[in-house]
């Protein structure tokens, strides 16, 4: 099973230090991990550092991976308006680093990714014609089609309506369990984090403020300290923890 361990991971842009010595226990395949923190806490930078796109000390150790490129990343940016259909743009993500010849297996993977996310009917559309939310789902499909063992998602629900937010996170959790894939998603909705993720790591000004099982990490004390809001966490009618924000501190 794939694992990811962050060991004193740091990152810098030029001389400016963005991440400082992030150390976590090993996250294992099958889990969904929430990456939390206020704006500019370093969440996107952490993803880029894990991918090796930024320099810095420490390391992101991947264990037990079988694929040549085990990590797929969905950035916040959903891409520019190229003259490509949705199907082509997902195929394109699948084919990176491969030969120009497209096999039936590759087409099958494209259809599986689109089907998994419930957007198969968008395949024929030009990507330039999509809404922001649809583009975000296509972007998720571009990451999924790479058959990753570790999937990093930067705010995957930010442009989605409520139904699609819940739907996407449910799908990701199911896929994580079925494929023993480790999913790490940067989220701003702590209610979603409480409901859909197993573990959480919280960043604050480039440092790790907390890390552990989500319901133990996301507490009123942490919300007050890191997010500067007064909030309560109470069980809803179905017994799930729900977050009720009172006011900004």
């Amino acid at each position, binding site marked *: 099973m794939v694992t990811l361990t962050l060991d004193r991971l740091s990152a810098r842009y030029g001389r400016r230090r963005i991440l400082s010595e992030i150390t976590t226990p090993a996250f294992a395949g099958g889990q969904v991990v929430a990456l939390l923190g206020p704006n500019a806490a370093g969440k996107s930078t952490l993803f880029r550092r894990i*991918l090796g*796109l930024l320099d810095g000390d420490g390391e992101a150790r991947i264990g037990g991976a079988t694929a040549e*490129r085990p990590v*797929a*990343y*969905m*950035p*916040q*940016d*959903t*891409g*520019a*308006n*190229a*003259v*490509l*259909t949705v*199907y*082509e*743009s997902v*195929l*394109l*993500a699948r*084919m*990176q*680093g*491969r030969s*120009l010849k497209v096999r039936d297996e590759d*087409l099958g993977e494209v*259809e*599986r990714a*689109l*089907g998994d996310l419930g957007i*198969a*009917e968008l*395949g*024929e559309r*030009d990507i*330039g*014609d999509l809404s922001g939310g649809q583009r975000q789902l296509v*972007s998720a499909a*571009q*990451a999924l089609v*790479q058959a990753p063992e570790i999937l990093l998602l930067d705010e995957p629900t930010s442009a989605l309506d409520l139904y699609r937010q819940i739907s996407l996170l449910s799908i990701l959790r199911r896929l994580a369990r079925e494929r023993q894939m480790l999913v790490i998603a940067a989220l701003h909705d702590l209610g979603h984090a409480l409901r859909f993720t197993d573990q959480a790591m919280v960043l604050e000004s480039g440092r790790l403020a907390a890390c552990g099982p989500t319901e133990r990490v996301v507490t009123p004390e942490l919300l007050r300290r890191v997010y500067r809001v007064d909030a309560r966490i109470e069980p809803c009618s179905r017994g799930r923890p729900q977050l009720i924000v009172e006011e900004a501190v």
Partner: protein
Amino acid sequence: MSTELTTGTAASRERGFYRALVIRRQLILAGLTLALGLSLCVDLALGPARFGLGEVIAALVTPDAVSQQARVILWDIRMPVALMALVVGASLSIAGAQMQTILSNPLASPFTLGISAGASFGAALALAFGVVLVPAAVDYVIPLNAFVMAMLTAFAIHALSMRRGVTIETIVLLGIAMVFIFNALMALIQFFASQQAVAAVVFWTMGSLTKATWPKLWIALGVLVSVLPLLARHGWALTAMRLGDAKAESLGVKPRALRLEVLVLVSLLAAIAVAFVGTIGFIGLVGPHIARLLVGEDQRFFLPGSALCGALILSVGSVLSKVILPGTIIPIGIITSLVGIPFFLFLVLSHKKASW
């Protein structure tokens, strides 16, 4: 169960649509190739001595079956010119296509980065003052001057692009700065040069295929054939570049390294083309746009599509340059712009979807 069935049906419909799209694009490429063949034959047929299409095809297939006069005219005089139109058109169009791709800019072309302007300056130095940058046979002094200046421009932009913090917008601005610098230098040359030299410079900048010879053609073709597979190798990565750097990077592409490599390759293509035929600005800009409208931006189709569109435009331009004023060959750069731009505007305005 019903959800699985629905998903399966949607998947098979999507695959059918994709396969149909691929076949349509292959047919378009085949159609362009046929049109190109026809245009080449017409181009060969036209001139002071006119031949029928049947004669041209006979001369191409079995050169010994036609008269020696026809063979000399068609093979030794017209063929290098007609083929040079195809090679230069394809080279400029590919250069423009990849510049637009790597710079995410619909206005990018060999002109935008000052490569053509550099070539003009190099040629003008030789034409006006006899400055020889690289000693060579008389026939090659002007093309070599143009080539050297075009590549120096490309390397200057390349070197500046390697600096930390340089964005694609900065690269385009550097190119535009180069264009203005060379335009000013050209004006300076024209100010000091003799009237006869100024006329030669002006004629060179209009672009002309008439100086094409078999050796020059082989050189231009050799560069084109060498560069094409190097670009095709990056087909998926280049397509991803059109989604923006952040997206491309997330898919495993290294945008900066790829941009610099492609910049060198397309500069070489453009420099060779401009060196041999002068500045033909329109094709590097418009060839790729027409290809984009016809076959989309998947580089497996876009790269050959751009090459074919560029070659076809210049070949048709070569035909028109002979027939508009019988007995006179109008410089090809003028024809491609005058005839091609209205056609291009028609295509752009009649197309419902914006590609940028």
